[in-house]
Each structure stands twice: as C-alpha cells, then as structure tokens.
C-alpha cells in the first residue's frame, strides 16, 4: 500500500491556524504513507497536477487530501485521481478547514487535531476498495412542483428544450403570487399582462401536462427514475365538461365565501373561478361554504350549469407519473396579521397587508382598481406604509429580511399617487433595501417625483381615533416620536415559507432551514441544486426573492435538468450495500429494515435463502449494515472495516 497525503493551505484559511508543514512531516512517519506534502491551493489546476504527477512518480495507490469539506471538493479530487489512473474511490478527504482551522484559534491544538484527522483518513483509505458504477437509463421527463412564475418559467424552458413536463399546482390556477400583483417594479408594467401569455403558453404547450388543484402525495425512486403519486383534489366540477362560462358563480347563493385569491379583501361565491385570467379557467366548489355540503341542500349550480359539469359526489383521485428529475418551485407564504397585536392584529379593517393592497390597486380586483378603504369604501387621502412588518424581527421569530417589500412599497406609494393625485403617502422604514439594477433610482423616484414621505423608524402602535387610524412611530433621524393620522395603513408583512413546505421537503428528502425555506447545494456555487441528486430549486421556495430572480432561477433549474438529461444513461453511485452470501444466514432482518425496499430474498442453488441487494434501488444509507447480526451485508465505502479503522486510529488503548 502506498498512500499519498496532500495537505492544503487554502491560502491562510488553513495554514493560518494549522502548522501544515508539521502535519505533512508527521504523516511521513505513518506506516503505509509513501509521500506527504503541503500545497497552497490544492484544488487549483497546478494543485491537481501536482497530485497527478505524484501518483505517477511515487507510484501511489491511495490518496488522502486534507483540505476543505468533502461536501465541497470530494468530486473534484475523485476526478483528479481518476485522470491519473486510480479508481475514484481510492480517495479520502480529511476536513481540516470547516472542522478544524475555522473553529479554533489555538494553533497547537488545531495542528494536533489535524494530524489525527489525517491519520484517520489514511487508515480508512488503506481499507478502500475499487468500486465501479453501473449505468442506467434516465427517464427524460421532469416534474415541476408549483405553478408560480418560477415554476412556469422552468416548465416552459424544459418543454421548449423538448422535455416532457408534469406541472403540479396546488391551487386551482397557475400564476402564483405574481398573478395577484397589480403592476411590477421597477418598470411598473402590468403584472398579469406579462404573466398572462406565459400562463396561456403553459396551458397550450403540448409538452406540458398541467395538474391544477393537485398536490404531490408520494415520491419514490432516485435520480433518473422517480415514481410520483399525484393527488387531484376534488373540485366537484367535471373540468372536462366545464367551459368556464361562470353562470354557476353568478347564481350561487353562498355569497360570503372566503376568497383565497384576493386574500379576503372581498367575499366570493362557494363555486367560483378564482380570477378572470385563471388557467385553467374552470369552476371549483369550496365545500367549507357550499350550502349543499354545509346544510345538505341547495343544488342551484347543478341546475344552472349548461354542460352538467357539477358533481357533488366527486372524490380525490390519485394519479401516477414517472419522471427523472424534479424542480421545486412552491413559492412562499405571508405572515398572519395576528402576529401584530400592537397593530390591531386584524381587528381594524383599515389596516391591511401589502398583498391585499395589490388587489385593491388591481383593475380586475374586487374594487375594479379603485382604492377604497375596507371600512367605509371611501378613497383614502393619507396612506401609511409600514415596512418590515414581522421581518427582521426576532420577537416574531423572523430575523431575516423579506427581500422585496422595500421595492413594492415604493411601487405602491407611486401607484397611490397615480390613482389619487391629492393623496399623501408615508413610509416607515428601517433601511431601504434596493440593490438591483434600476432599483435605487426607483425608490428615489417615489420620494423625489411622487412625494412619498419616508420616515426612518419603526411603528410602535396603530389605533383608531374616529375615522382615522393613528400611526405612532419614531423618526430616529430627528430623534422624536411622530404620529400620522392615516386613512389606510398597509403593512408589508413578512415573507414566510409556503404553507406545508417542510412536509414537501420530507417527501423529497431535501433539507430545509429553520424557517422552512429549502437549502441549496451551496449558497454561492450551487444555488439551484439541492444535495439530493435530481432535485432542483427555483424561486421563493429557496428564500424570498423578486420576480427577476425567481425567473432567473426557473431558467437555471431548467438548464440543470437539460444538462442532466443530455445523457441517455446515468452512472449509479457504486457505494451501495453488498451481501456476502457465505456469511449471510438468511434471517432477512435487512429486508425488514431497508427504507427503500432494496433487499430481496434470493434462493441459492442449494435451496439456502440469502439476502440480495438490488443495486439501482439501494440508496446507500447503511441501515441494513448496522442491522445485520452477522456483518454479512456491507455498505461499500462505509464498511465495518473502514469505519472501525477510523475508530481504532483515535481510540488505541
């Protein structure tokens, strides 16, 4: 065995708090180590060349790189040693950066810890066996979850590239939040005018199969071969028959149904088409409000519908689709008003949220684009915008910035002036966050050309006084308390993860952060990938972002899928479980525990029963290995021998 050890400086990242030369020197004393050196930037091209040359020169057959996290560069170095003719699994990495040099300043302790960590890696590497991938066929269909602007962009880009797309949207129509917006910053173009055509393309593209009012129920499989169960929720209207004429909606007597699309700005009917541009434009019954469901009698819509589309007996339906990759674009939610007792917590009708205000501004909204305050339907002359309502607020459990509200507040202030020329807007803010192209100019314009008064300070309280809402805040630049007697108050409520985001992540086996946003592969270098092969992210599901960024990510995720699907065959990860048929006693405990159903019974010629792993199904978790009483089933690359070699290196009594 001839092990080569390469200790990386990572500039001063590692060398600053670890004596790398000493680590290399110590390694030269370890039995089996034929060569050890330290190098400035091992992952750089010359750094990799150095490894390749050393392999040839020193006839090395196992390589240990002590550098950053294997989550960062394991693949890089596997490729390097493969180019030099070694099996890629002959590589081991010791993480001396994230786990040592960055978390302690004591150089002596760090150096000592690094020496031991590298020794562990050497011990494991000496036990590494060559592993060979198998190739398998890719199913070149893609599932997109979420039909907001990000998901639609991803779906269209994939479909335009010739891929078959399954688009699953939870609500009755695609469009997401953008479909609710009036105009969009920083150009103030009409949201639905630019989104509408995309929605129609989605509906008409022959490569896109749209399941609206549906959710992903179950996901099985692995990159290249997923089996998806989709639950089509009962709409109580046969969408094949429904023409979207709207006759039912006009006659439905349940007039006080909650309008999810308009965020409750005005009520809707129990049977409704969410908005005029909805795709698909079909009616749906809300059983929480429909009298047929609540009281057991009505049936008006069934009588009125010219096509006989109403079906009160409809049940949820499960559909199966097979795909090879998944793009998650499930968007975001908004924090509830009841988080703000000091602002009235939803008790005062004239304190509304930003998204509700978008609906008031919108020509196809409940007020037909007239800004009327909810309490008495009069035109407000003084409008106060409160930024960071819940955002950047630890006491609300939301320490992060919601990213786009500064910009939409400026937009809404401008639009308010456009709608009501003799109105005055006030904006309470802590910081104006407008770093995009043309963005800062936009927020300046709101102040310079549209006269919005920006007040630097938080709002402490809002209370009613007569017909006015008194907004009590601070002007920290003046160092005073300030009050505005407003007609309408708009809260820029914090962006949260989409409802149900964690549950969806669990189905997908991807990680989510404390707040429910999905975690990308690397915050800078893999922004639309996840750590689960074949699953990609786009839009606000990953974190709050505006439309341009969401669209950008939709396209990026689509191009990642295109790249994945550019090959017909994928290589499997050979780090899977293997059964030693000689030692297996056929107890079948492994079959019971394998979470993926990857182990099956096999009858040997003599009639003896043993376990057998289906390589393409095995995900490589090693649960079976820890279960087997005989050590007969071993997870390659993480065998008992390999892990115990590491344990023994540090625990030698």
């Amino acid at each position, binding site marked *: 065995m001839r092990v080569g050890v390469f200790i990386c400086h990572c500039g001063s990242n590692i060398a600053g708090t670890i004596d790398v030369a000493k680590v290399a020197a110590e390694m030269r004393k370890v039995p089996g180590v034929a060569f050890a050196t330290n190098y400035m930037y091992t992952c750089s091209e010359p750094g990799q060349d150095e490894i390749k040359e050393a392999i040839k020169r020193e006839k090395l057959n196992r390589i240990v790189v002590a550098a950053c996290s294997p989550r960062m560069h394991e693949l890089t170095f596997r490729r390097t040693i493969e180019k030099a003719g070694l099996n890629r699994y002959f590589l081991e990495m010791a993480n001396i950066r994230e786990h040592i040099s960055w978390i302690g300043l004591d150089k002596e302790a760090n150096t000592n810890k690094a020496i031991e960590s590298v020794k562990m890696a050497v011990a494991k590497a000496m036990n590494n066996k060559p592993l060979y991938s198998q190739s398998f066929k890719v199913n070149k269909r893609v599932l997109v979850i979420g039909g907001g602007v990000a998901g639609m962009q991803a779906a269209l880009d994939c479909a335009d590239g010739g891929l078959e797309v399954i688009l699953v949207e939870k609500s009755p129509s695609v469009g997401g939040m953008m479909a609710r917006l009036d105009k969009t910053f920083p150009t103030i173009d009409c949201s639905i005018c630019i989104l509408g055509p995309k929605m129609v393309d989605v509906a008409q593209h022959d490569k896109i199969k749209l399941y609206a009012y549906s959710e992903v129920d179950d996901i099985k499989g692995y990159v290249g071969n997923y089996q998806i169960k989709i639950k089509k929720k009962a709409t109580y209207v046969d969408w094949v028959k429904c023409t979207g004429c709207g006759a039912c909606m006009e006659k439905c007597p349940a007039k006080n149904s909650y309008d999810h699309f308009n965020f409750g700005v005005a009520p809707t009917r129990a049977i409704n088409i969410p908005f005029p541009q909805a795709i698909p434009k079909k009616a749906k019954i809300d059983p929480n409000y429909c009298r047929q469901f609540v009281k057991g009698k009505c049936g008006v819509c069934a009588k009125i519908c010219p096509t006989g589309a109403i079906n009160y007996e409809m049940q949820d339906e499960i559909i199966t689709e097979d795909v090879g990759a998944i793009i998650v674009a499930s968007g975001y939610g908004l924090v509830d008003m009841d988080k703000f007792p000091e602002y009235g917590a939803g008790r005062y009708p004239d304190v509304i949220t930003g998204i509700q205000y978008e609906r008031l501004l919108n020509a196809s909204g409940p007020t037909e684009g007239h800004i009327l305050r909810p309490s008495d339907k009069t035109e407000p002359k003084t409008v106060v915008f409160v930024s960071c309502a819940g955002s950047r607020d*630890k006491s*609300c459990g939301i320490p992060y910035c919601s990213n786009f509200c500064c910009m939409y507040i400026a937009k809404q202030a401008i639009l308010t002036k456009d709608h009501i020329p003799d109105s005055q807007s006030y904006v309470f803010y802590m910081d104006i966050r407008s770093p995009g192209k043309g963005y800062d100019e936009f927020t300046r314009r709101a102040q310079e050309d549209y006269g919005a008064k920006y007040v630097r300070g*938080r*709002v*402490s309280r809002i209370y009613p006084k007569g017909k006015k809402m008194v907004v009590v805040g*601070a002007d920290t630049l003046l*160092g005073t*308390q300030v009050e505005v007697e407003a007609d309408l108050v708009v809260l820029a409520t914090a962006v949260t993860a989409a409802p149900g985001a964690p549950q969806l992540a669990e189905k997908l086996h991807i990680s989510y952060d404390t707040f429910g946003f999905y975690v990308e592969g690397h915050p800078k270098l893999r922004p639309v990938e996840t750590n689960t092969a074949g699953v990609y992210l786009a839009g606000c599901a990953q974190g709050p972002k505006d439309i341009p960024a969401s669209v950008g990510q939709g396209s990026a995720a689509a191009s990642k899928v295109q790249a994945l699907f550019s090959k017909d065959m994928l290589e499997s990860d050979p780090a899977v479980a293997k059964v030693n048929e000689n030692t297996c006693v056929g107890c079948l405990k492994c079959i019971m525990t394998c979470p993926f159903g990857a182990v099956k019974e096999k009858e040997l010629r003599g009639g003896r029963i043993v376990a057998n792993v289906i390589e393409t199904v095995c995900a490589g978790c090693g649960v079976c290995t820890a279960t087997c009483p005989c050590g007969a089933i071993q997870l390659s690359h993480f065998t008992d021998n390999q892990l115990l070699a590491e344990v023994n290196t540090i625990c030698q009594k």
Partner: protein
Amino acid sequence: MDVINLTKSTDWNFIEEVSKESGQNPSLCYQCGNCTAGCPYTNYFDFPVSQIMRLLQSGQKDTILSSKAIWLCATCETCTTRCPCEIDVANVMDTLRIIARRENKVSEKDIKLFYDTFLASMKQHGRLFEVGTLMAYNLKSGHFFADAELGPKVMEKGKIHFFPNNIKGRDKVAKIFTRFQEKAKKHG
C-alpha cells in the same frame, strides 16, 4: 453635541458593566426606534430611549449617566414589550439609574429625592407612610406646597393617616437596608 472621538471616548468597560448588570446585549439593538415610538415619556426625555441605547453602544458613559431620560423613565415596560430584538430595554434603563446613583451623577435630583424619601419611610416604619413621605419630600425639595391643594380632598375622604403604621418587624426591614449597605461598602 461635540464631536465624539470614537477611538478615545468609547468606554468599553462601561458597555461591559451595563451588559453584565442588566443581562442585556446592547449590540443587539439595530436602532429601529420602536422603543422611542412607544415610550410615553419621549417628549420629556433629553435623549429618546433609542438614543440612550445608541449612546450605550458607543460607550458614552458621562452623557448617559448625566441624562435626565434615565430618571424620567417610569419602567412602563412598553419598550421591553415591543423591542423586535427582544432587548429588555426597561431593564437597561433601570441598570443605568443604579449606576448613576452609585457614581453620584444623578441629574434629576427631585426624583431621586422622592425615591429616597420613600425608601427612608419604608426603612423607618416597615411600610410606606404616605403623609410622612410627602411632607418630608416637600421639605427637602423646597417645593413646600406641592400638591397642597389635594390635601384637604383626601383628608375629607378619610384616607389619610396622620400616624405611621409601624409594623412589628420594622427593625427587620431596616436590617435589610443596613445589610445591603454594609455589603455595598465591602465591595467598594
């Protein structure tokens, strides 16, 4: 205000002292102004409470300890309840008063005097003797007739006792004070 030379006048020990005694981390404050917005006394403060927090972040010990604001704060808890960074601001104000007292830098003599008179009454009688406290305060503060017009109204309602209600254990209460003073002396 004069130019604040940040390299020279930042009193790091003071920041440390306040953090330790109040258990609050002043760096958490991002100067949103919510405390000032809600404080019922902002109009009367020489520095609004968010600026006290800012002065604290910059270690401006003298300015803070000689401010009126720390004495005009009524511990109404509005700031603490609403601070988005979960800072117990009222506690910081309380701590600043304690330090100002300790260092003999009290700007609002009347308020301190009132508190002292209150505590003296307590030490003497075990309970608060309202009339005695008021009279002692008026005498010492020189506001001889403060609230004098209210006297008859209260008297008429039979709410005033002209003699203190001395409790049996009043020496025990006094002992709490003496023990405290002894301890304080010991620790300098």
